[in-house]
């Protein structure tokens, strides 16, 4: 079973990736893939999941779930896992999955493996084999859950290809009730604040111009933004740039930031720590501009320029502008 995630009213990108991961596992186990869809006014989302390849969708539609809240989500999912007893429960390694996954596993007394980049089934035991980066990405570990019961994992974003829609697919949709009438929980949400970011959303951008410590200041990020705008993309940043308050934290790329998969990722003044690269290594093309020829980023980029970015950026913007005219 996978947990479908919504982003505003639509299926979040991770949901289609979870379908791919889930179908792979279900296929190896010779089982059907089911999905759990939780929200308010979920409309055709259940049918969409079926068109993506899910065989069976369980829907819980209630105002309590109008947006993600830890307590009702946890209570509901724990109950459904106990009633339906899936062997495997997969979530995205998103803010939601990171919040829910571990606590769910502790509540159900089972093992949990976060941020999986590869999933398979052990032929003899039929148990899940989960691979995930550890030590900041220095190594990958292959894990299995000890007992044979429910196995819970979160799947790293942008690793599995999104499942493709086919409108002719058919499946079963089951509505499940939410019986808990409680409207107040121990944790109260006082307000939600959206950080403003002009232009293309980082996660959706086809081009990202990303800056690190080497950029030097908030003002200097304006130059990166100009290049990003010229190329129709977004800016991104390393954690150092975020910690220095040069850019808002929602632009952080990496292990503990966003995972992105643009056509082109331009890394400027970024050394290429594995914790950063964890967020962008699946980009189709990585271009690094760094003045240190020994910088680790040149071991991971496709194209590299050894230079002070301040010399390269102005002519680059000029020529890219000319190109797009």
């Amino acid at each position, binding site marked *: 079973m996978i947990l479908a995630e919504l982003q505003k009213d639509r299926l979040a990108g991770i949901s289609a990736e979870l379908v791919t991961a889930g179908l792979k596992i279900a296929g190896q186990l010779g089982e059907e893939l089911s999905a759990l869809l939780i929200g308010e006014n979920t409309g055709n989302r259940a049918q969409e999941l079926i068109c993506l390849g899910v065989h069976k969708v369980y829907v819980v539609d209630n105002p309590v779930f109008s947006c993600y809240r830890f307590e009702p989500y946890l209570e509901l999912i724990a109950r459904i896992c106990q009633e339906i007893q899936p062997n495997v429960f997969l979530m995205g390694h998103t803010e939601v999955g990171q919040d829910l996954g571990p*606590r769910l596993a502790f509540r159900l007394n089972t093992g949990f493996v976060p941020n999986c980049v590869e999933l398979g089934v052990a032929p003899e035991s039929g148990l899940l084999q989960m691979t995930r*980066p*550890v030590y900041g990405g220095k190594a990958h570990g292959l894990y299995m859950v000890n007992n044979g019961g429910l196995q819970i994992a979160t799947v790293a974003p942008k690793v599995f290809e999104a499942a493709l829609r086919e409108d002719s697919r058919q499946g079963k949709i089951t509505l499940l009730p939410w019986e808990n009438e409680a409207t107040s929980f121990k944790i109260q949400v*006082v307000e*939600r604040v959206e950080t403003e970011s002009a232009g293309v959303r980082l996660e959706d951008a086809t081009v990202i111009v990303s800056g690190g410590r080497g950029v030097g200041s908030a003002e200097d990020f304006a130059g990166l933004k100009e290049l990003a705008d010229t190329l129709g993309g977004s800016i991104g940043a390393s954690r150092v740039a975020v910690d220095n308050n040069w850019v808002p934290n*929602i632009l952080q790329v990496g292990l503990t930031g966003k995972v992105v998969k643009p056509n082109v990722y331009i890394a400027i003044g970024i050394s290429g720590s594995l914790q950063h690269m964890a967020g962008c290594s699946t980009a189709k093309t990585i271009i690094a501009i760094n003045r240190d020829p020994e910088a680790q980023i040149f071991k991971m980029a496709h194209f590299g320029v050894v230079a002070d970015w301040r010399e390269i950026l102005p002519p680059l913007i000029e020529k*890219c502008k000319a190109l797009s005219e």
Partner: protein
Amino acid sequence: MLTIVVCVKQVFDPEAPLSLFQLCPEGKKLIPPPGTPPVLSSFDENALEAALYIKDVQAAKVIVVSMGYKLAKPVLKKTLAAGADELILLEDEQFEGLDSYSTAHVLARAIERIGNWDIILCGRQAADTDAGQVGAGIAEILQIPGITLARKVEIEGEKVRVERLLADGYEVVETARPVLITASNEIGALRFPNVKALMAAQKMGVTVWDAAELGLTTAVTKQTNLLKLFVPERNTNCQMISGENPEETAEKLTAILAIKVGGN
């Protein structure tokens, strides 16, 4: 007075270059170069800072708990130098190589033993396991609310007010104590202790509890098994671009962009 427990793990320096590490023969551990001292896991430093930030404005006792085997006391004493009141080490041979599940059980046992705490702070994830699991586990075992990914923690009378990270911003949540909170780097770096405080801290005593002391008579159960570790292959085929002058380099880069931006 508030009692705040902060769980701090020692890890080897996550910023050290990969080339210095070796995989142990059984393939289950990375071995750092000899002689490199461990550091405090970075998000645990943020967690300690959140606790000290509370202590700045009201009466609070900050207790640091760290579990492991052959812990580096001088490194962990940095927490005392920064302003923690007490350091409790959970040290036992049994505590080596635990998974997140068993780690949470040992830490929860120690926290129960401390008793009378109001707030528990953990890092959002340890810099070696990158799991982000132990905090949630402690909260579930102790049956208290857990709030993850905090970017700010404040006390508001009987309540705790936390700003919690979301994908596109943050939310402000409130809950009564006791509560467990996991800290993200947005909280801010751990204040830097001065030399005098560092020296004074080295002379402060620490409490050490072993498994027996915690009443853990049988081996702690694990829920997950690490079968093996391996170093993933990486693309090292970088094509270097250069020109006679910046204009020429930019020209070449633009030509590459013209092709690649479209996804080719």
